[in-house]
């Protein structure tokens, strides 16, 4: 199982029935593949649908129905079309139960940087700042290091996405919960050890007793 699949399978367990969930493009979108059968939720795509479904059958794509990455999707029965004001009203107003986003850095305060690398990549924040500021739960789904460089750091050096403590960080090595006291190591990835996580993390980690292995969907 590769790192991304581990992450997606672990995040999938955070999704509970009746939630409204927004998945970022890339790795976060893989979470949809691993949801338990009995979980009954709606996915929101911030470009304007509640009830996002899988790819449509070949030849049945509708130019007016895409996800936030521009890919063709379907809408599930009971879906609703919404405009951008309603879409971000739901996000900012606390109606979105969970967002799963990628990350460039997370720091000891639980602050996320994921939209910009100065002097390099300036794609724009899109909906990320609203999502991180407004969603009830923010899950950062990311591989633990970038080409060996730790991404969980004492303080973000990249521009912040929001001044808000995210709810959970899920990597292939660990599940880490940002708290008032700092970053608490909650679970270990398959075959990972506390020493290995510390090695790959420059931020201070709080370890309380035995750290269990992460369950995977």
């Amino acid at each position: 199982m590769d790192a991304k699949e581990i992450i997606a399978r672990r995040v999938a367990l955070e999704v509970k029935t009746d939630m409204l969930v927004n998945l970022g493009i890339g790795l976060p979108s893989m979470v949809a593949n691993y949801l338990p059968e009995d979980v009954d939720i709606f996915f929101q795509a911030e470009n304007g649908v509640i009830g996002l479904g899988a790819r449509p059958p070949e030849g049945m794509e509708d130019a007016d129905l895409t996800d936030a990455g521009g890919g063709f999707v379907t809408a599930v029965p009971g879906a609703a079309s919404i405009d951008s004001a309603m879409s971000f009203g739901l996000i900012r107003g606390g109606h979105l139960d969970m967002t799963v986003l990628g990350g460039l850095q997370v720091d000891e305060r639980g602050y996320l940087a994921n939209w910009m690398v100065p002097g390099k990549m300036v794609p724009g924040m899109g909906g990320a700042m609203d999502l991180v500021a407004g969603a009830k739960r923010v899950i950062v789904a990311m591989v633990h290091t970038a080409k060996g460089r730790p991404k969980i750091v004492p303080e973000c050096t990249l521009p912040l996405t929001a001044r808000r403590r995210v709810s959970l960080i899920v990597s292939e090595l660990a599940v880490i919960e940002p708290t008032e006291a700092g970053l608490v190591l909650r679970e270990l990835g398959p075959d990972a050890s506390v020493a290995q996580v510390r090695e790959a993390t420059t931020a201070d980690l709080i370890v309380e007793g035995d750290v269990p292995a992460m369950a995977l969907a």
Partner: protein
Amino acid sequence: MKTATKVEDAAALIPEGAVLHIGGFMGVGSPHRLIDGLVARGVGGFTIVANDTAMPGTGIGKLVTAGLVARAIVSHIGLNPETQAKMIAGEIDVELVPQGTLVERIRAAGVGLGGVLTATGVGTLVQEGKRVIEIDGKDYLLEKPIKADFALIAAKAADYKGNLEYSLTAHNFNPIMALAADTVIAEPQTILPVGAIPPDAVKTPGVLVDYLLERGH
């Protein structure tokens, strides 16, 4: 009762340097025939207010390629390397705005509010140069309304009175932009007799629409 306007006549209404709201999300729900009409006409220097600049060869991306865009107020340019290149070369001035803030700033202009008070962007680069208003112990950015000279919007259908309805994720910024420009030009996929769009289905009342583009062929 509206009269149908030809694409070239609609394009000719728009002077050099105009501020344009343009609907669409990665090209979905953009007024494609109007955009082609602007490219054919070749007058530019526009300030474009839109979610994104789409991709080269698609939607607003065509205006970028044609060199008609002097300034872009958008949430995302990540899928259009031409916009990024022109930004770096100083040919396009890009203001990046969080997506939820962008749509709400447009709405504020349309519904006569003095600005938007949002927590999105607080403590980030987006805060720079803006007033921060504390309300009941929490900080909000004061984000100003964005009005346009013209709104170029796409719709699923219009009736002869200019009432509009939208389709699925092609709603996005269109219904909001229809509120916030001196002149609104709507590009419907189809035009129906009065009464064919019942009152409860109308999302943009025809009184907001100044020009209705003739049906496509």
